[in-house]
């Protein structure tokens, strides 16, 4: 009875509190991700009660709210600790000593990964690449990031948290008095190893925007097109053409969206631009708005980069104060543009532009059916330009220095410079801004990774190459990359790497279409057989065959590239697979494990087999 009353009043309390949160976003269902992030932050969980309250306030069904809440990895339907430690379990972190760090956390907290301490204080879990590969192993502790972890650091962190200190206090004693940039710099190193002429060298304030404002929109687009700038997120679509398509639409509402959902494992270049060139980024978005005729913009920041939120918000506020955002920008009558910051919540798929738009609309991050394309029917059905962080920064610089300046850098078909995120087995991991057209080998020499046995160009959705291909050129026409260069020495197990990346794609598939949802699980299991030495000779053909089906039938880029770790290593390292394939002995398939096949039945029958149980006689 007492329980029922208490529970009843708690429910009412939850409803009132959640209603307040919904009210902050105008009870707008399109702001569902913001609402649920706030509910999660306040309650460390999105309970059924909370979902019901959100549903009532936003006018959606409860199952629709649950659909969003259950999609994003940083939202939880079951209670988490007041502090959640998310260990980055990317393959780079594993190779950098994640295991020892995880063990130290487990021992210090008295729980295993995936659990919450009994007092509800601290949760420990794994999360895919958080974009800190150059300073692995790393972790998120609520909204702060800690890097270069060691078992000693893990124990110190646990002790401090157990003492009741906030995650922020782990970074600096005077954390709250630091500027947002200083806070970010305390947490994460930039590791800029080579600054190029376009982005990381000296950049004058607003020079590109001022030039853009004395031109008409068509002239801006002509310049961007003439510069040869192509999308830096990986797909490489001509930026000028994209802007032109959107500008030509017949709609009075158009949107500019910045894709700062940098999720490809091994990629962290946008993190540096967001930290060190945020004004240039917003300047580029503002120029795009001018060119396309957009008044509204969204900057979609991946949940893992939440530590950069105060920095971005400060920059946006500063620009509003200076008249660089808002109404009549720089005094140009009728040039209105403002940007809202949209936080993600742990979903790699949201880097796909349709999924990113879905996420901005408050939906699960599922890609949209194409056609229609976002440039004509994007955010809320309006023409939308989605560009990568680096692309916008380049655009601002092109408007400053001119199309020819940019065009003259790089190689045929790949103009300008590119930020490469180099990590893994090399002496100098970090960011390299270099003109397109250099070879992988040249980059490896700069980074101190000449001894590499394998290099993953473009992350797991890209290509794994062996030494015989190191002279290939980085660019759209030879080896395309969104920026990830992951270096593996000859000590590394290729199949371990491939199995990890397949588990990553299984974790990150949205599940909308059959081949990506199910096929990737099959691929992961098949690679597991190779690792265990249980594969048949025919399994190599099976891997290729299944991969081909997934690539050909998947609905979006995730499924069209997820088999790449397997296919590119089959091509580059065929012996690795061949060595694990055993010809069948005594006509028994090694793949069939009688012990595990009958284990469930054995438990049910509560007896053991005289034939197959090796320990039967005992």
């Amino acid at each position, binding site marked *: 009875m007492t329980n029922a009353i208490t529970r009843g009043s708690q429910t009412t309390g939850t409803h009132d509190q959640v209603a307040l949160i919904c009210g902050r976003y105008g009870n707008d269902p399109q702001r569902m991700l913001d609402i649920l992030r706030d509910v999660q932050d306040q309650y460390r969980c999105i309970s059924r009660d909370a979902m019901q309250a959100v549903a009532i306030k936003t006018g959606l069904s409860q*199952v629709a709210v649950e659909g969003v809440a259950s999609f994003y990895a940083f939202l939880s339907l079951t209670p988490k600790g007041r502090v959640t430690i998310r260990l980055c379990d990317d393959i780079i972190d594993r190779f950098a000593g994640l295991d020892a760090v995880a063990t130290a956390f487990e021992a210090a907290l008295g729980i295993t990964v995936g659990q919450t301490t009994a007092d509800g204080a601290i949760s420990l879990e794994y999360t895919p690449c958080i974009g800190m590969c150059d300073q692995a192993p790393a972790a998120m502790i609520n909204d702060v990031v800690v890097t270069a972890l060691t078992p000693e650091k893990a124990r110190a962190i646990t002790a401090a948290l157990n003492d009741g200190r906030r995650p922020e206090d782990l970074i600096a004693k005077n954390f709250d008095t630091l500027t947002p940039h200083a806070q970010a710099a305390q947490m994460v190193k930039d590791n800029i190893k080579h600054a190029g002429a376009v982005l990381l060298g000296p950049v004058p304030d607003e020079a590109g925007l001022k030039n853009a404002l004395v031109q008409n929109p068509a002239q801006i687009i002509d310049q961007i097109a003439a510069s040869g700038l192509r999308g830096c997120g990986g797909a490489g679509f001509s930026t000028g053409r994209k802007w032109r398509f959107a500008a030509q639409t017949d709609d009075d509402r158009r949107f500019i969206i910045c894709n700062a959902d940098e999720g490809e494992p091994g990629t962290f270049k946008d993190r540096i631009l967001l930290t060190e060139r945020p004004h240039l980024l917003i300047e580029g978005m503002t120029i795009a708005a001018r060119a396309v005729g957009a008044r509204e913009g969204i900057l979609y920041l991946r949940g893992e980069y939440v530590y950069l939120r105060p920095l971005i918000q400060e920059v946006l506020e500063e620009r509003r104060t200076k008249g660089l955002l808002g109404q009549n920008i720089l005094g140009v009558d009728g040039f209105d543009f403002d940007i809202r910051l949209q936080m993600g919540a742990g979903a790699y798929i949201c880097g796909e532009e349709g999924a990113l738009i879905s996420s901005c609309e408050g939906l699960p991050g599922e890609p949209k059916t194409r056609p229609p394309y976002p440039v004509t029917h994007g955010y809320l059905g309006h023409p939308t330009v989605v560009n990568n962080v680096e692309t916008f920064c380049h655009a601002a610089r092109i408007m400053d220095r001119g199309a020819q300046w940019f065009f003259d850098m790089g190689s045929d078909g790949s103009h300008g410079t590119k930020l490469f995120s180099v990590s893994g087995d090399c002496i100098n991991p970090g960011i390299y801004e270099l003109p397109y057209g250099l070879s992988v080998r040249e980059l490896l020499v700069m980074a101190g990774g000449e001894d590499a046995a394998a290099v993953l160009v473009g992350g797991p959705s890209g290509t794994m190459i062996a030494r015989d291909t190191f002279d290939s050129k980085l660019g759209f026409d030879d080896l395309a990359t969104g920026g990830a260069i992951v270096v593996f020495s000859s000590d590394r197990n290729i199949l371990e790497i491939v199995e990890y990346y397949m588990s990553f794609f299984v974790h990150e598939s949205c*599940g909308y279409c059959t081949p990506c949802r*199910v*096929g990737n699980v099959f691929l992961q299991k098949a690679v597991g057989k190779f690792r265990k030495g249980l594969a048949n000779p025919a399994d190599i053909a099976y891997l290729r065959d299944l991969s081909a089906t997934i690539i*050909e039938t*998947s609905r979006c880029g995730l499924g069209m590239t997820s088999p790449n770790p397997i296919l590119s290593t089959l091509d580059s390292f065929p012996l690795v697979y061949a060595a694990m394939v055993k010809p069948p002995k005594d006509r028994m398939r090694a793949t069939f494990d009688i012990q595990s096949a009958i284990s469930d039945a054995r438990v049910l029958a509560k007896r053991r087999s005289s034939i197959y149980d090796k320990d039967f006689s005992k």
Partner: protein
Amino acid sequence: MSGFAFQIDGVEITAKDGQTIMEAADDAGIYIPRLCDHEGLRHQGGCRVCTIKSNGRSVAACTEPARADLSVENETPHINKLRRDLVGMLFNEGNHLCPICEASGNCELQAMAYRLDMTAPTLFPYLEPCRPVDASHSDIALDNNRCISCGRCVRASQDVDGKGVFGYVGRGIHRHIGVNGADLADTDAAVTDFAISAEVCPVGCIIRKREGFTRPIGTREYDNHLIGHDIEKKRDD
């Protein structure tokens, strides 16, 4: 209404403006296999069984707009191989035990396998999920082990019944159909809903209680015709 022509497997058909390839093919009496698509419901493009080649590019026929002079490959060995793989994935993702399933003979997944000549197990592993059965409702039961995540019930309930009883929950291999409440009895689902009717769920997941195994073998939906027969017979008329 203006129209245009394009080809499917060398047969010229006419289409109306705004039609998808599948809609135009249906009108012309050419069956393109599909599971998540159903007449009268929004197109989803999720199961991918309707994958075709349109001017050499593989796309889902249910969502791809028809255009003049397209050359579409539908019933080719290559495309049917892809479809067998996709149907095989759906079989092995869930628990599909035809002999004990009351949808047997009326099941679109089973019928699709027959149409595609799938007569032996594939190389795919069985995922053997352990999904809950929801028998809370007085007239309806859900055996989620047989669900193929086509989402036809989601769209039927939302768009036709105006209710929203079902919705997708979760992500990736854990994505599944959830109900708008603690269980089905907690929702406003009724056995008279279109979403609950025999034609919406292609498999034996949504079960209307007290009416199982009523059609004798030999008279069931796909005992005498391949799936797609109703569309293909239009060509004969």
